[in-house]
C-alpha cells in the first residue's frame, strides 16, 4: 500500500509525519536539528530515500543536511555558497546600493531524474546548483548578474529566491521567483535569464507594471501543463497560459487576494488552492476563519473549504512554501501554519484534520508519495 511522508520545516527543527494511503493515523518523528531553523526539506523524485534539508541559525550560519535513508539519519554536506566573482550591489530598503550578502537557503529543488543534482534558492537572491549530492555548490550567476540585478530590492522577509520550478517537459527550462524582483525564466539550464512579469501590477513600486520589482510570493504548475503557471503575488492571484510570457489576474471572488501559498491538484490541472490572508499588514486569515479556497476552473471562481479548520479566533499565517499535495488517487492537500499546526485533507480539500497542532512555527511543507 502507498505511503505518504510529509516533510515539515519549522523555526526550531524538522519533523517527518508518516501515514499509509488512508492518511488517517500518523507517526510523528522529530525534531531533527532541534533549535535550528529549517527553511525547507525536499525529497528527490528520483530516489525518495534521498532528502535534502536547509538548516540555519543566526548564530552559526547555513548548513545543508542530506539523508540517504528516508530521513532516519542525516549528514551535513557542503555549505559553501560563494557568489561568482565580485558580487556587486543590489538596492537596499532605503534605495542605496547594498552588497550582495549570502544569508540562507530558502528552497531546495532536487532534480526529477538525478538524486545527486539539486538547485538551491538563496538570500540574497541567487541560484546555486550541486551535482554531487550537495557536497559542492556553484552559482548559476547569469541570474544575479542580469542587467536588472542591481535594482532588485528586498521584501520585508529579505531578498530571497524562494520558488524554483524545473519544467517537467524540458529540464533546460527553469522558472524562479524572487521577493521582490519577480519571476525570471531560463531556457538554457540556468545560464541566461529574462524577467517574466508582463501583466503583473503592484501598487508598492513606483511604476506598477514595471519589468521587475514585483513581490511574487509563490508560483506553481501542474506537470501535465508545463505552460500554465499560477502565482500568489503580494496582492493578486495570477495565471499565465504561455509559460510566464504574460499573466492575467484570477483572484475573482476571493475574500482577499493577498496570501503566500498557491498549489495545484495532483491530477486536475485546473484545480488550484490558495489560503487568503487579510492584508500585507495583517498576516492572518480574514475574520479569524482559516479557509483554504479551491478553484476548479483554473481561477476566478473560488469556493471556501473550511470543514475541520478553525472558524473563529484563528490568527495564524501560512507561509509561501507551506502547502503541498500528494500524488495518491484521491489527492491529499497539506499545509502548515505559523501556529504550529499541520493540516491534511485526504479528499482534495473537502475535509481537513490536524496531523499535529503544537509544532514550532511551520516554514515549509513538502510531501513524498511512496509506492
Amino acid at each position, binding site marked *: 500500500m502507498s505511503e505518504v511522508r510529509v516533510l515539515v520545516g519549522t523555526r526550531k527543527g524538522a519533523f517527518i509525519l508518516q501515514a499509509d494511503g488512508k492518511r488517517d493515523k500518523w507517526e510523528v518523528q522529530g525534531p531533527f536539528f532541534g533549535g535550528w531553523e529549517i527553511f525547507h526539506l525536499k525529497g528527490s523524485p528520483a530516489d525518495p530515500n534521498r532528502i535534502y534539508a536547509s538548516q540555519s541559525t543566526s*548564530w*552559526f*550560519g*547555513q*548548513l545543508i543536511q542530506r539523508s540517504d535513508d528516508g530521513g532516519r539519519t542525516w549528514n551535513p554536506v557542503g*555549505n*559553501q*555558497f*560563494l557568489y561568482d566573482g565580485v558580487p556587486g550591489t543590489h538596492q537596499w530598503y532605503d534605495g542605496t546600493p547594498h552588497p550582495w550578502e*549570502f544569508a540562507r537557503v530558502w528552497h531546495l529543488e532536487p532534480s526529477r531524474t538525478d538524486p545527486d543534482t539539486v538547485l538551491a534558492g538563496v538570500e540574497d537572491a541567487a541560484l546555486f546548483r550541486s551535482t554531487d549530492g550537495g557536497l559542492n555548490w556553484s552559482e548559476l550567476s547569469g541570474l544575479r548578474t542580469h542587467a536588472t540585478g542591481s535594482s532588485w530590492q528586498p521584501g520585508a522577509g529579505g531578498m530571497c529566491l524562494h520558488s524554483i520550478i524545473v519544467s517537467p517537459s524540458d529540464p533546460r527550462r527553469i522558472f524562479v521567483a524572487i521577493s521582490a524582483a519577480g519571476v525570471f525564466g531560463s531556457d538554457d539550464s540556468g545560464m541566461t535569464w529574462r524577467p517574466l512579469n508582463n501583466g503583473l501590477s503592484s501598487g508598492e513600486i513606483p511604476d506598477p507594471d514595471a519589468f521587475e520589482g514585483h513581490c511574487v510570493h509563490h508560483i506553481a504548475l501542474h506537470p501535465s501543463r508545463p505552460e500554465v503557471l499560477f502565482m500568489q503575488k503580494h496582492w493578486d492571484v495570477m495565471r499565465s497560459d504561455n509559460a510566464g510570457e504574460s499573466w492575467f489576474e484570477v483572484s475573482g471572488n476571493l475574500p482577499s487576494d493577498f496570501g503566500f501559498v498557491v498549489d495545484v491538484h495532483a491530477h486536475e490541472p485546473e484545480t488550484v488552492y490558495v489560503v487568503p490572508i487579510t492584508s500585507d499588514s495583517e498576516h492572518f486569515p480574514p475574520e479569524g476563519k482559516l479557509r483554504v479556497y479551491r478553484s476548479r476552473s483554473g481561477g476566478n471562481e473560488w469556493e471556501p473549504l473550511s470543514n475541520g479548520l478553525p472558524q473563529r479566533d484563528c490568527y495564524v499565517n501560512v507561509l509561501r512554501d507551506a502547502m503541498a499535495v500528494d500524488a495518491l488517487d484521491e489527492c491529499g492537500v497539506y499545509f502548515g501554519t505559523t501556529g504550529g499546526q499541520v493540516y491534511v485533507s485526504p479528499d482534495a480539500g473537502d475535509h481537513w484534520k490536524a496531523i499535529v497542532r503544537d509544532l514550532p512555527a511551520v516554514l515549509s511543507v513538502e510531501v513524498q508519495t511512496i509506492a
Partner: protein
Amino acid sequence: MIRVVLPAHLKVLANVARDVQLEVPGIPTSRAVIDALEARFPALRGTIRDPATQERRPFVRFFACELDLSHESLDSPLPDAVISGQEPFFVIGAMAGG
C-alpha cells in the same frame, strides 16, 4: 594540547559530548585553533567563521581566562594558560533573542 569548549549546537554537529582536545601546530592563535577545529570536524566549517570572508560570525564569541578575545586579532597569540591546557578556549553562542 588546547582544550576547546563548544556550544551545544556545535557539539551535536561535531558529534562530541565533551571538551575537544586539539593539537594546534605553530603559534597557537584563535585562527589556528579554529583552523585545527575545522580540519578535525569538517561539519563545523562555516559555522564559526563566514565561509566567504573568514570573519568570525557576529553572534559567535571567543572567551578564555575570563577575557573576551573576540575583538582581538585572530592572529594574536593565545594566553599561556590556554596554550598549556590549563584553561579552555570557549566558543560561545552569544546571548540573543528573548
